[in-house]
């Protein structure tokens, strides 16, 4: 089966289940599919079981403070190694309800990726076995990758910012 027909089959399948909110193929020939956060686990389960998408490439988040009710986004790439097809899924979360189903029932690899995303953005992964901070110290009280936080530690004493052109 050629890659494009397999891709069509995937999109059809997802469409028939009503998972796809928006599907675009951009100029880089990458396939972006926007899904609803609450369907995410079913989507992944369906792709894994029916269509053989067996490789979770990557899972991360991003923060768009200017987009109303879509401030946060969970992005994950998923790949079928046999058909060599990679899809990018996105789902938007409002800052009032930052919940996303954990993909750990399907992919063990999602465990730390989700912990990292939680650590950076504070997105809650529902059903995650052990949602703790992973990279930062446990008693950190904010999620550093959000746009409103500074890169530098503002409590540091020894660096004179005027010399660094900030």
């Amino acid at each position, binding site marked *: 089966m050629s890659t494009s027909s397999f891709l069509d089959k995937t999109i059809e399948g997802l469409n028939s289940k009503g998972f796809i909110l928006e599907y675009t193929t951009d100029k880089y020939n990458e396939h972006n599919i926007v899904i609803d956060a609450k369907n995410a686990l079913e989507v992944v389960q369906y792709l894994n079981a029916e269509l053989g998408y067996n490789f979770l490439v990557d899972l991360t988040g991003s923060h768009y403070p200017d987009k109303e009710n879509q401030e946060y986004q969970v992005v994950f790439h998923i790949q079928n190694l046999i058909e060599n097809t990679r899809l990018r899924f996105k789902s938007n979360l409002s800052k009032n309800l930052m919940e996303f189903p954990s993909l750990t029932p399907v992919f063990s690899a999602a465990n730390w990726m989700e912990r990292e995303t939680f650590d950076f953005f504070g997105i809650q992964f529902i059903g995650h076995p052990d949602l703790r901070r992973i*990279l*930062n*110290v446990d008693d950190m009280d904010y999620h*550093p990758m959000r746009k409103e*936080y*500074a*890169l*530098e*530690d503002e409590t*540091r004493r*020894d*660096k004179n910012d005027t010399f*660094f052109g900030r």
Partner: protein
Amino acid sequence: MVKVVDAPEGFEGQGFFATSLDTVIGMARANSLWPLPFATSCCGIEFMATMGANYDLARFGSERMSFSPRQADLLIVAGTISKKLGPVLKQVYDQMAEPKWVLSVGACASSGGIFDTYSVLQGIDHVIPVDVYVPGCPPRPEQIIEGVLKIQHLAKNESLRRRDSDEYRKMLETYNIETT
């Protein structure tokens, strides 16, 4: 009858006179600096290269790496130290037996380097006293060897009693390190 002359003013006190025992032990210490590599990142790989055949830190009597802090004389901090790791580093320093020296290898250990971020300690001298800083990101093995030679120089010229002195104790107290 031997007439004992008082020492000239200002030349008294603990840890001042360099006796020949001081010299001998200083030389012994200098030539037998057993390093504890606290290698975290990139500089650690350059430290491995320093131990390797081309640069061979063993020439200076420093090849017996002792990963147990009790047995080490020289703490080589090579790489970024994050805030999460700071307490660990301090504990390792604390566990080392006197006399101990600290070599800070690389920009990250010395000042935070390019990582002026929320998670990185801006220089290990916030946590422990440092004897010699080696610049570079990462420094070449030659530079690391130069740093070790500088430590050797310190070890050679240190009096045996320096570590008992009040100044030393006070210096440690500024780092909140308990002295016994």
